[in-house]
């Protein structure tokens, strides 16, 4: 575990020195900041607008960062052949994979905190400091981002970058549409199609589970119980994804 940490910290340090991260972060902050530009709205409407745009911005740009940083974390080691040297060290391949995961979590945490501080700053400036509901929404977004990163990391252990990018974005979109998908599945008559649909529905991560922002924006309370339930869902999903990644990194030839 200590070795995974060392690899994680190195991944983190490296990504801090590259520009991509900052570009994404700056765009995200601009988007969040722009939510304040609708000055024709009433104060209450404006506040909703700020929350709505900020939650979406943090989630979307967080997802972009999660996907690109995870992709880079593994594929760059392979492309630049630094992985040869790493695999010749006294570490297991699982150490390597978990290390990369730790690195991605560190990167996401830093970015997430920066985006949140900016958002919270805006709220305080608007004399409406964040309440417990806002923090619940942010918490769910954060764990969602970790899951998105873990999935891209795992796919990187066996697939090409091009496939991985397409797959990760596809999953991001489909994962947000699962409830529509489920309705569609319920309506189909064809049994085979229905069966396949059901399987797909249960396998695809339901990112919409992590989305309580629509409720929070309009002031509907979300119970702690729900957060807990989704937390368990997240943890199970994450563990399975990481196990799959650990399995494939073991088999990988570079």
């Amino acid at each position, binding site marked *: 575990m200590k070795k995974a940490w060392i690899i994680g910290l190195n991944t983190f340090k*490296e990504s801090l020195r590259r520009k991509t991260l900052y570009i994404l972060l700056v765009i995200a902050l601009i988007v969040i900041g722009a939510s304040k530009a609708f000055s024709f709205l009433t104060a209450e409407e404006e506040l909703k607008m700020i929350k709505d745009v900020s939650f979406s911005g943090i989630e979307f740009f967080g997802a972009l960062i999660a996907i690109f940083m995870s992709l880079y974390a593994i594929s760059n080691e392979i492309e630049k052949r630094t992985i040869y040297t790493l695999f010749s060290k006294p570490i297991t391949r699982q150490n390597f994979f978990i290390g990369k995961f730790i690195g991605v979590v560190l990167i996401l945490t830093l970015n997430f905190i920066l985006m949140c501080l900016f958002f919270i700053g805006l709220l305080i400036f608007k004399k409406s400091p964040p309440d417990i509901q806002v923090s619940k929404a942010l918490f769910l977004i954060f764990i969602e981002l970790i899951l998105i990163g873990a999935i891209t990391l795992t796919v990187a252990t066996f697939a090409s970058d091009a496939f991985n990018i397409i797959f990760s974005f596809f999953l991001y979109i489909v994962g947000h549409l699962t409830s529509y998908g489920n309705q569609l599945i319920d309506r189909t008559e064809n049994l085979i199609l229905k069966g396949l649909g059901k399987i797909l529905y249960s396998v695809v991560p339901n990112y919409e589970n992590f989305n309580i922002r629509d409720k929070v924006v309009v002031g509907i309370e979300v119970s702690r119980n729900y957060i807990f339930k989704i937390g368990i869902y997240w943890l199970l999903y994450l563990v399975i994804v990481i196990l799959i990644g650990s399995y494939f990194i073991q088999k990988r030839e570079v």
Partner: protein
Amino acid sequence: MSIIEIKELTKYYYIGRNKKIVGLENVSFSVEEGEIYGILGPNGSGKTTCLKLMLGILYPTSGEINILGKNQFDIEMKKNVGFLPENPYYYDYLTGPELLKFYGKLYDIQEKILNERIEKLLYLVKLHEAKKLALKHYSKGMLERIGVAASLINDPKILILDEPTTGLDPIGCIETRDLLLQLKNQGKTILLSSHFLSEVERVCDRIAIFHRGYLLATGTLRELIEKYNAQGLEDLFVKTINDFDKKGDR
């Protein structure tokens, strides 16, 4: 017992469903403690494949690898081995000392000892004046040299070097050669691959000639020259390879 033993090692690469490429075919040899063993061979002869298999980077199709009495995946064994990959390339954004520190930490070396060792190694490979320079600004020769330093960070018993002098200028080659001999005098066992015949001739105690994944000959230079009735290493190299290709044609 030999410090490294390779038994009937075979590696096939599969491209798509049916296309099989021979990386290594039934290769056996052993390396004795304290010697410098050189693997020679033309491009694509399987040198890199062999070294990667020995470090558990690739999985063999069949055969066995034994290093320090352990197999190639053993973590304890790896603590005593240093590896320099072919055309090494490292994390762009780190500096030389940062790179060495990162690798050193993976060996659980005590902080103080590690720092001293990094200092010493940077002097050894003449990079102590480039401490603040990120690796992306390194020249090819500097990368090769930081690679050598990185492979020595754990003070290994066995050094495995894949073409350590590619990309070095003549002075760099001579310096590397001297370094290898110096390391040998410290009691290290060195396995290196190369296609610079003169370099191999000067430093290696024993050599192996690889071609198309096969090990054609192994022994001391003198033994081999006698056996093949050759004029020198170059002649030996050409002879063994031509003999093999002729046999294949028939």
